[in-house]
């Protein structure tokens, strides 16, 4: 148990560093967007823009999309940097795989909390630059939903997405370019079956756009369990590569 605690301590430290860098960058990006919007006048907007009868924008919501990309980097770094270091320093693969789940939970919870608060503050910031705030994000409405619901939704979605990237990163680390060959092959085969293509696309979009109710929650939890389970099994059977 002592050793499991040590790897969790290491992963926690790594999460803190990684998160600090990300949120500092996002703070600067948001500040930049704020200044651009303030100076650009009423006809030009920067950020997430929804055009319609009235153009609405979100400035702090930009970090939500950046988060989804950040989770790819975060999970790849976990496998390509933290995994070889941990195994080289006498950590078991099982402990590492467990600590990865813990790390994913910490990142999803912290980011969900920060992003939730930011999205509640977003309309105030947008009004300060004399523009119309965007409320409807598909998965929630920042005007009508309370902050707890926002944070919970963000946590669930971020952890699900992180789990899927974790699986991809662990498979990629173990199988290298062969994984992409398999993916290309599957893509080629599936191109003959139109419903497959459409199905995969709809499935991915649904994760990020569907409001969480009981059924959607069950779907996301299932995806998370399957992804984490497969990533765990893959990681405990992976040897480290010479260099990364």
């Amino acid at each position, binding site marked *: 148990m002592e050793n499991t605690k040590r790897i969790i301590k*290491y992963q926690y430290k790594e999460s803190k560093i990684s998160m600090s860098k990300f949120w500092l960058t996002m703070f600067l990006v948001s500040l930049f967007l704020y200044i651009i919007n303030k100076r650009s006048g009423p006809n030009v907007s920067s950020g997430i823009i929804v055009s319609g009868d009235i153009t609405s924008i979100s400035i702090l919501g930009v970090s939500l999309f950046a988060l989804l990309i950040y989770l790819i980097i975060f999970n790849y770094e976990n496998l390509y940097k933290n*995994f*070889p*270091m941990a195994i*080289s320093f006498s950590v078991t693969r099982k402990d590492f795989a467990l600590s990865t789940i813990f790390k994913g939970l910490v990142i999803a919870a912290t980011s969900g909390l920060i992003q939730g608060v930011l999205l509640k503050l977003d309309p105030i910031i947008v009004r300060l630059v004399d523009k119309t705030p965007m409320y409807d994000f598909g998965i929630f409405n920042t005007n009508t939903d309370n902050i707890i619901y926002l944070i919970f939704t963000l946590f669930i979605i971020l952890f699900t997405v992180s789990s899927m990237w974790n699986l991809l990163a662990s498979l990629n680390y173990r199988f290298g370019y062969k994984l992409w060959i398999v993916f290309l092959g599957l893509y080629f085969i599936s191109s003959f079956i139109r419903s497959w293509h459409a199905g995969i696309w709809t499935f991915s979009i649904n994760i990020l756009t569907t409001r969480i109710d009981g059924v959607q929650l069950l779907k996301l939890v299932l995806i998370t369990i399957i992804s984490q389970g497969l990533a765990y099994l893959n990681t405990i059977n992976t040897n480290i590569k010479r*260099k990364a």
Partner: protein
Amino acid sequence: MIKLVDVNKSYGKTPVLSQINLKLEDNKIYGLLGRNGVGKTTLLNMIGNQIKASSGHISLDDQGIFENSQALSDICIVKEEGIGVEDIKLKEIFETAGILYKNWDEDYKDLLINEFNLDSKKKFNKLSRGNQTLVGLIVGLASRARYTIFDEPSLGLDAAHRDRFYSLILEDWEKNPRTIVISTHLIDEVTSVFEEVIILKDEKVFIKEEVASLMKRAYYLNGNQDTIISVIDRDKIIHREKFGNTVIIALFDELDNGTKEDLRGKNIEISPIPLQKLFIYLTENHLSKEAM
């Protein structure tokens, strides 16, 4: 004690190690020797949980090592190929080691960094080969792990740094006894550090013996060939060099005092064989284990 019982390792259909049976006792310094490709690194990586044995059992205090957190917390392996990550600052490497090794000695790490004049702010991949090796040595020494394994710890090091490293190992081992396994090709330099040597040959443990006892069985005999042959057991000759009527014979056999006196009386010069030479003769020689 680390114990290997009937351990085998193959890569695909190619066997690397077969039927390895070995015991590594507490608080001893072992030298692991063997020709290139004989499986030294593979053996050390199996002990250090880096790779899994194809079959057999490796245990520490009767607990299986593979994927066992408890057992692994007592093992530190410093690999020749590094830690699998190169684009990383030394500071981060040491901080990580400090978190993950339970007996990590931060003060000793600082002392070693000063001793070897390393800059912790530098990235690992910006260091010379020798300095990269030093980083591994510092991790190994400061880990204070009960079993510390160094795979080729002298790669890229200049003579002064190698000498300092060997001294540090002995100094530290006196204060903090532990088991140290060193795999190296520069055998003569480390002979005084080793307490026991393990020689791998033909996928197996060929010899595992205390250095002192091994050296007692290894002699050069210099003189007339017929005279030497009349006294010694021919089957124990592991090397022979002829210069006219004189021959230098490397003998791997115990000689009692009577025989030594007899040989000296017949103008045969007797001298010890350095460990490196002995290793070369044994690993290239036809001498079978049964003959020993």
